[in-house]
């Protein structure tokens, strides 16, 4: 798991690469929390995330709470069908701005 961060105007974009499981979710969370503490609008580009377990859901929950506590927003981009299924079954999907492309994700935060 690897995270690359870039800036587009007032939006921070964090591109995650790899699998988010019980081992990597806490590492990803530790890297992403400071971004959410510094920026109100964050796009998580998940188009290169091939796997997300409940540990990843827990990470998304923590990030979501951090963002909403600051009236910020987290947009998710490029979710695989399988990850969408997991998020839908567990009632997570509806709480995030979800887009297929980075441009659409940026627009959803505008």
């Amino acid at each position, binding site marked *: 798991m690897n995270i690359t961060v870039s800036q587009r105007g007032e939006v921070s974009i964090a591109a995650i690469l790899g*699998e988010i*499981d*019980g*081992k990597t979710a806490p590492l990803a969370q530790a890297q992403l929390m400071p971004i959410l503490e510094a920026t109100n609008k964050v796009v998580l580009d998940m188009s290169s995330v091939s*796997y997300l*377990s*409940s*540990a990843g*859901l*827990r990470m998304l*929950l923590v990030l*979501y*709470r951090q963002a*909403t506590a600051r009236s910020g927003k987290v947009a998710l981009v490029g979710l695989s*069908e*399988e990850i969408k*299924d*997991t998020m839908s*079954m*567990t*009632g*997570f999907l509806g*709480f995030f701005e979800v887009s297929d492309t980075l441009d659409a994700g940026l627009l959803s935060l505008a």
Partner: protein
Amino acid sequence: MSALTLPATLDALEDIGQFVKETAVSGGLDTGAAYRLRLAVDEMATNIVSYGGVAEIVIAATVTARDVTVTLVDNGVAFDPRRQALPSEAALAAPLEERDIGGLGIFLALTGVDRYDYAREGETNRNVFTMRKAPAAPPT
């Protein structure tokens, strides 16, 4: 049957994931079924290495003409996941601000596969996950 014995740490999850993915490919599961099998096994394995208090975890696979079965074996205290309370529909619909995050892993493990079985055999826990293969296309 193929099998693998691993130290029961979070580092084992990557090897377990790889093992299940290879089993799913050799067993001919479609992408969705392969993913849900890996998710179920990974969730249970995460639980075992995090809370089981065991030194090792064994993963084994069997492929037949009809299905693909993955078994996790550990010698921790008896733990039957089927006796855990799964999150209710109301809990899964609650706003994320109010969520109690517990139980989602077991929920995904038990509901994602076609069949889940647990057995306590002597001093071991056996978690058995089965996916049925999609029926072959009829001859044309």
